[in-house]
């Protein structure tokens, strides 16, 4: 059944039609109940025994819920009734022995969890798990402000890990069913996966082949496709009200950039290293000066990949959540509706940013792979 003869236009129309589904009506959160992890940059959590009721700290908690990682998957909380919608995630700790327990033992940070005789508590300032005594007290060093308790190795399944698994499973099932549909339908895709065929062909024809070349592009296609759709799906997950912020997390983007770095340098041929250390076509004294700079470039390029994706997504989320919070600060007709309009438009921009950042990451990775497998061009007039 042909849905549309102009698939790209149809895809764009479908995306715009789905925008009303991404509404952001969240109940205000009580910051004393919110679990947080890995505090970044501007967002700091204020957890007190007394429950803060003013709007600003509630908004801070709301923003924190969206951009910080957490040991339990919180959908929403009702302040008045204190009811909590969400589910706890397993905590896996290595502390001279494997401790596995549910994060519900932490009771949203109020109590210390007991496991095999050891007690663990979540530090409210940085959201990390420390080994404590039975009272769950975390002793802070007076001078540095850092906790003095021992920190076990934390391998927990946190919210971000769940989102990565979800994205991976989604990709696996979508693309395996798309691939199978080719066999069943004689070379033409059928089913929902048809949306991705033009994207895959685009990545092959506009990103992989122009940058890597006809001879070698097939080796890198699987990686390029994987990171494109992985980053795209994680970015789109981040736009939902579930509070998932995977690509706005420095460790995730670091891992992706490390993969690009390793693949570039481990599959590079002699010309790549030649262009870095002993570049042809450049007078010899210049080569000695340029070599350290080029070597630095080898590390800075993946570093910039990491920072670019992280900063774009993280900053976008912070700004979007803050403007949504602005709706509650302006308790007036005009202020709140303007904030709502602005946040709506900004979310549309965030969808564009989601696609763009996935595209840029993939394109730059393809560019680096291309430079790694480039054949030797004989320069005219250059003396080797």
């Amino acid at each position, binding site marked *: 059944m042909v849905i549309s003869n102009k698939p790209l236009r149809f895809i764009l129309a479908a995306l715009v039609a789905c925008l009303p589904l991404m509404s952001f009506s969240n109940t205000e959160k009580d910051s004393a109940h919110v679990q947080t992890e890995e505090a970044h*940059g501007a967002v700091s959590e204020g957890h007190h025994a007394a429950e803060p009721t003013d709007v600003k700290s509630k908004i801070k908690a709301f923003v924190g819920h969206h951009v910080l990682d957490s040991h339990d998957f919180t959908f929403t909380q009702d302040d008045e009734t204190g009811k909590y919608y969400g589910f706890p995630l397993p905590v896996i700790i290595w502390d001279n022995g494997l401790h596995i327990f549910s994060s519900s033992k932490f009771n949203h940070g109020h109590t210390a969890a007991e496991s095999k005789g050891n007690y663990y508590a979540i530090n409210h300032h940085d959201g990390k798990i420390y080994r404590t005594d039975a009272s769950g007290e975390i002793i802070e060093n007076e001078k540095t402000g850092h906790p003095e308790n021992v920190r076990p190795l934390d391998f927990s399944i946190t919210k971000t890990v769940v989102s990565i698994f979800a994205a991976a499973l989604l990709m696996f099932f979508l693309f395996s069913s798309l691939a199978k549909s080719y066999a069943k339908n004689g070379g033409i895709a059928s089913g929902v996966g048809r949306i991705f065929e033009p994207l895959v062909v685009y990545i092959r024809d506009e990103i992989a082949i122009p940058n890597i070349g006809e001879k070698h592009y097939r080796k890198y296609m699987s990686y390029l496709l994987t990171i494109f759709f992985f980053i795209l799906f994680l970015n789109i997950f981040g736009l939902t009200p579930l509070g998932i912020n995977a690509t706005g997390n420095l460790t995730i983007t670091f891992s992706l950039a490390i993969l690009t770095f390793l693949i570039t340098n481990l599959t590079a041929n002699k010309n790549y290293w030649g262009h870095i250390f002993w570049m042809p076509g450049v007078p010899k004294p210049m080569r000695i000066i340029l070599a350290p700079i080029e070597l630095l470039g080898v590390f800075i390029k993946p570093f*910039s990949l990491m*920072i*670019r994706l992280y*900063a774009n997504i993280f*900053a976008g989320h912070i700004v979007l959540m803050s403007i949504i919070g602005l709706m509650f600060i302006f308790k007036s007709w005009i202020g709140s509706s303007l904030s709502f309009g602005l946040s709506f438009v900004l979310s549309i921009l965030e969808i564009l940013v989601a696609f*763009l950042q996935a595209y*840029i990451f993939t*394109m*730059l990775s393809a560019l680096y792979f291309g430079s790694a497998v480039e054949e030797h061009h004989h320069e005219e007039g250059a003396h080797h």
Partner: protein
Amino acid sequence: MEIPNIVGAGLIVIGAALGIGRIGGSAMDAIARQPEASGKIQTAMLIAAALIEGIGFAALFAS
């Protein structure tokens, strides 16, 4: 007297906006001269804009 961080952030934004504005401008000129190449020009423009934004964001986070 210490210059506050926010002034640095403002300068970064000015720099990034100038850079991307120039790229956008020359992309418009190029598309006007040769509309058939608009796809390639758009792609190149987006890549250059993303690179500049990358520096801009990294610097913003450092400030």
